[in-house]
């Protein structure tokens, strides 16, 4: 899923201070699961904004709504009336949701209430971790299902850097070295020989290196 974190209330107040009628719009998909922008967070952030409005004399009028998916026009439609009757929208969707709204409502200010962080999973209670960099040319089959591009801070493809430790990454003491995980995983599944071959430089063009990406499926264009 896409994992995001809420911006701070002071930051949101600064972003919204020139508006009066504000729709706080949640999203029922990824950001609900990662506890950043679902119905519950819409309620919490709206309450915090009302308190901040009283303290700073900003006169906010906050409306709350959560739709199933902000990145999908079919669901965005459900929010049209609420968007039209407010001066601005604080989207608690991911960056894709915010932009889908902005593209559809040309004259309405749409603001991001979250910092979209990564594609990841819930690793443990309250801990989300990045697992995929969306590089556009998956290499997981070569590395035992552990992504060195995402999980090695230096995205090394031929083994660990000298800073690798059995219990930690050089860059983050609280995280394992991806290469230690890859080594043990490949050894465990009898594929350690995969590490002995030199992996050539990666083609980054299918990733963001090739510019903003679009997938066109002709079979779905009819």
């Amino acid at each position, binding site marked *: 899923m896409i994992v995001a974190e809420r911006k701070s209330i002071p930051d949101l107040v600064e972003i919204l201070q020139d508006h009066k009628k504000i729709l706080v719009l949640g999203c029922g998909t990824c950001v609900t699961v990662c506890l950043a922008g679902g119905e519950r967070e819409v309620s919490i952030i709206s309450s915090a904004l009302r308190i901040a409005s009283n303290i700073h004399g900003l006169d906010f009028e906050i409306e709350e709504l959560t739709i199933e998916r902000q990145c999908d026009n079919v669901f965005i439609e459900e929010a049209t009336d609420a968007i039209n009757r407010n001066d601005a929208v604080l989207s608690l969707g991911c960056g894709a949701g915010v932009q889908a709204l902005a593209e559809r409502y040309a004259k309405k200010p749409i603001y991001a209430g979250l910092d979209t962080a990564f594609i990841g999973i819930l690793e443990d209670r309250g801990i989300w971790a990045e697992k995929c960099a969306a590089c556009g040319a998956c290499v997981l089959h070569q590395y035992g299902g552990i992504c060195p591009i995402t999980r090695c*801070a*230096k*995205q*090394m*493809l*031929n*083994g*660990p*850097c*000298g*800073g*690798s*430790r*059995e219990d*930690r990454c*050089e*860059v983050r003491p609280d995280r394992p070295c991806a*290469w*230690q995980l890859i*080594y043990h995983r490949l050894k465990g599944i009898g594929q*350690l020989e995969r*590490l*002995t071959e*030199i*992996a*050539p*430089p*990666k083609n*980054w063009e299918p990733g963001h290196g090739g510019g903003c990406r679009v997938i066109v499926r002709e079979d779905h264009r009819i």
Partner: protein
Amino acid sequence: MPQISKLETMITAGNFIITAEFLPLPGADSKAAETASGFLKDRPAAVNVADNPHGPILSSLAGSVILEKSGIEPVYQIVTRDRNRIALQSDLLGAAALGIKNVLCLSGHHQTLTGSRQSASVYDIDSIQLLAAVKQMNDDGVLLDGTKIAGDFKVLAGAVATPDMKPLELNMIRLTKKVAAGARFIQTQAVFDLDAFAGWIKKANQLGITSKTAILAGVMPLESAAEAESLREKYTDLVIPDSVIDRLKAAGDAAAQAKEGMAICIETIKKIQSLDGVRGIHILSGGKEHRVPEIVKAAGL
């Protein structure tokens, strides 16, 4: 035809090799390099020029050229952290045109461990891919995209190894790949745990790695117990055992600790010299180039 470097000649001849390190300053003139060259010109066969290990300083290519002009053969260090394959190959061509004959290929300390932690991450290629690119440029005269190089490109490529990196099997996979990718010499991170180093070099001997590349063991004179603790805390590639830190602490005041640090360094060199498979010593002075002549003299190098 480009000349063969002094370092390469010594590797081929089987001489015991001493290399040292020059850490440029964040300066816009050649004074620091010239001052350092005064300490480094006598004994080391070649001197590495660090590539922005802690944040921006005078470029390693410029530093290498200044050393060359001062009569010192440089080892131009080039990290993959800051430059993509376009810039790396361009700099390599430029270095060759300026007379640089030795290149050390490494990934470099991650940017978040430098003073410029907000920098974008590059890491387009890794250190092994950079070595392979240099090998292709040397052997085939072509760049990664197949473009033919005009003129002769010939540099001696080296790499870094971290003997303390475990498990040993993974360490050796990485070392073997570096040698296969063209590393003619290997400079190790500073050795403080002699037992671990002895085990590492023994394994490299068993695998035949030491007959294919020249391994130069890194040594570093520690200034104080506080410096040692700070270094090992920040850089996981520096493993400094508690016994070394205890010894520094027991030495007493700052001057006594610095003296003890030097004594530990000299002892380390002497023990390393007795090990099969070691072809030389790389003195990592960490910006304290003035200590190099003292180390060379005291260790009888």
